[in-house]
């Protein structure tokens, strides 16, 4: 039995090892080497790249990235929870609604982000319409700021919040909601004392699925945030392209991974203690 299980796991383990562990080892190696003039990484070995991470400039970018990811996750939760609840209780229609939630995946994320640019820019649909209606004199600065980045992230990752939330809410016994009302709880009290605690696994899973890609997001901040809003994804990408500093890029990537890992460990510990 155990041998069968081991053989079944072997392909997965192999794929994970080659596609995950080996690149990770390469990254770690790069982060300890010295930059070359045209990219790449060369001896001698050094810790300098890691020391640069402590530079307030980079710490600030990392902090801002965490803040943007947290705000985006919170907004996804606030928007996703009612939506997931609605879908879970929609009866026979719920499969239709689920398809609608994942419908955006049918087109490329890049194309959809460009679509947002066309909507938000100074000569975009929204500004043109408001100008034409005479509601504004000058175009509103909708694009190239943190608001636009967060909008894009929320738009892009909302389904990752809705799906796990839906999965837990759908299993919630409706009799529990009736029991709560029967015992005098008003709808919001039922939400707070029964629905929210019982959907914690979904809230946790959804928040991680949104927070992690938001933290490392590159495309959305780059396209919707422009040059004024450097986040850690853009910073890393820059090291491998324009700045040609692969070792520092590698160190930055590992730094972001460390933040995510620390967060995950914290969550798992609290989960084991039954806090969340």
């Amino acid at each position, binding site marked *: 039995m155990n041998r069968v299980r081991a053989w079944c796991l072997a392909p997965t383990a192999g794929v994970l090892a080659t596609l995950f562990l080996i690149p990770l080892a390469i990254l770690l190696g790069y982060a300890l080497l010295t930059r070359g003039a045209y990219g790449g990484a060369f001896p001698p070995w050094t810790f300098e790249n890691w020391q640069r991470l402590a530079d307030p400039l980079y710490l600030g970018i990392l902090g801002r990235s965490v803040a943007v990811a947290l705000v985006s996750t919170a907004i996804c939760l606030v928007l996703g929870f009612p939506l997931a609840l609605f879908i879970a209780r929609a009866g026979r229609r719920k499969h239709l609604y689920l398809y609608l939630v994942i419908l955006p995946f049918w087109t490329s994320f890049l194309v959809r982000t460009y679509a947002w640019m066309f909507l938000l820019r100074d000569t975009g649909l929204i500004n043109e319409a408001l100008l034409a209606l005479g509601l504004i004199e000058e175009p509103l600065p909708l694009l190239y700021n943190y608001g636009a980045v967060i909008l894009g992230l929320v738009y892009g990752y909302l389904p990752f919040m809705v799906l796990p939330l839906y999965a837990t809410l759908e299993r919630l*016994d409706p*009799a*529990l909601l*009736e*029991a*709560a*009302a*029967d*015992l*005098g*709880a*008003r709808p919001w*009290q039922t939400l707070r*004392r*029964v629905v929210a*605690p*019982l959907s914690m696994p979904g809230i946790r899973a959804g928040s991680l699925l949104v927070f992690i890609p938001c933290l490392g997001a590159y495309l959305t901040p780059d396209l919707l945030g422009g040059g004024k809003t450097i986040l850690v994804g853009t910073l890393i990408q820059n090291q491998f392209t324009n700045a040609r500093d692969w070792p520092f890029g590698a160190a930055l990537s590992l730094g972001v991974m460390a933040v995510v890992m620390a967060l995950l460990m914290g969550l798992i510990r609290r989960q084991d203690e039954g806090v969340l």
Partner: protein
Amino acid sequence: MGNVLELNRLTKHFREQVALESLDLTIPEGEFFSLLGPSGCGKTTTLRLIAGFEEPTEGEVWLRGRRLNGLRPYERNVSTVFQSYALFPHLTARENIEFGLRHRAGGWRADAPQRVRAVMEMLQIADKAERKPAQLSGGEKQRVALARSLVVEPDVLLLDEPLSALDPNLRKQVRAELKALQRRVGITFLFITHDQEEALSLSDRIAVLNAGRLEQVGTPQDLYLRPKTRFAAGFLGPVNWINGVGVRPEATRVMHERPSEEVRALPATVENAVFLGNCIHVEARLATGEQVVAEVSRLNGTFRHGEQVHVWWREADELAL
């Protein structure tokens, strides 16, 4: 004291499906009242209309002189023991019981902890207070569910087949305790069951429902001895239908000799005698072709397949429909 609960031509349709049709009931203060009927007859629907989980298609629900129509469940001073108990899985037994005291009108009062402790002691679950529902046995869950609903002191406690999830031995024991509990707390119980024995043994009065309509209301004796419809007669226990007259098996006798002139008697042939320990079921076929079952004591002699006997009963024991 007056009536606590009044149902007035209460009707519920689900699209074309008639779940309940013009039900009239009045339940006085402190009564143990049962709704009895087969599966799908509208028992749960009635209860849900009273609790406010459904709105009636027509008719009214009155609780202590207050019309409940349109009020939300949390605005009604009734409380439900659900068939599956519906305990909150993330809360301990004690927190489940406290839930109503925290959210009902009046909120968490100074005497709340004592009330919680008292109800847990009464139901003998005080030592399980800090357990989650998943760590409780079926019987313990049922007690927590009862405690949770009782502690808020509802005007009427609604119980939807609360014993059906228990195993048969426990069921008999809990049944006896439930009756004692109701006497002790004095709260009006509206108890749903499809088990006639449960209804007969627990209730002050019973309403028999059939396909969404009320068949009869009365005391257990009324319903068992003086049923008004064939359905009520048959649902409360087995009946021998002899020339259109109903006689209960325990009122039906058999003997080898010819009985006296004062009683009603018919000749019959024994088809089977089933030994049940405390009694014998003699199955006999009348000359008319009808089969009757007589529940007789083993002290009344032995009966064998093919024997010619006389089936007899007293006129007073006939069910007058």
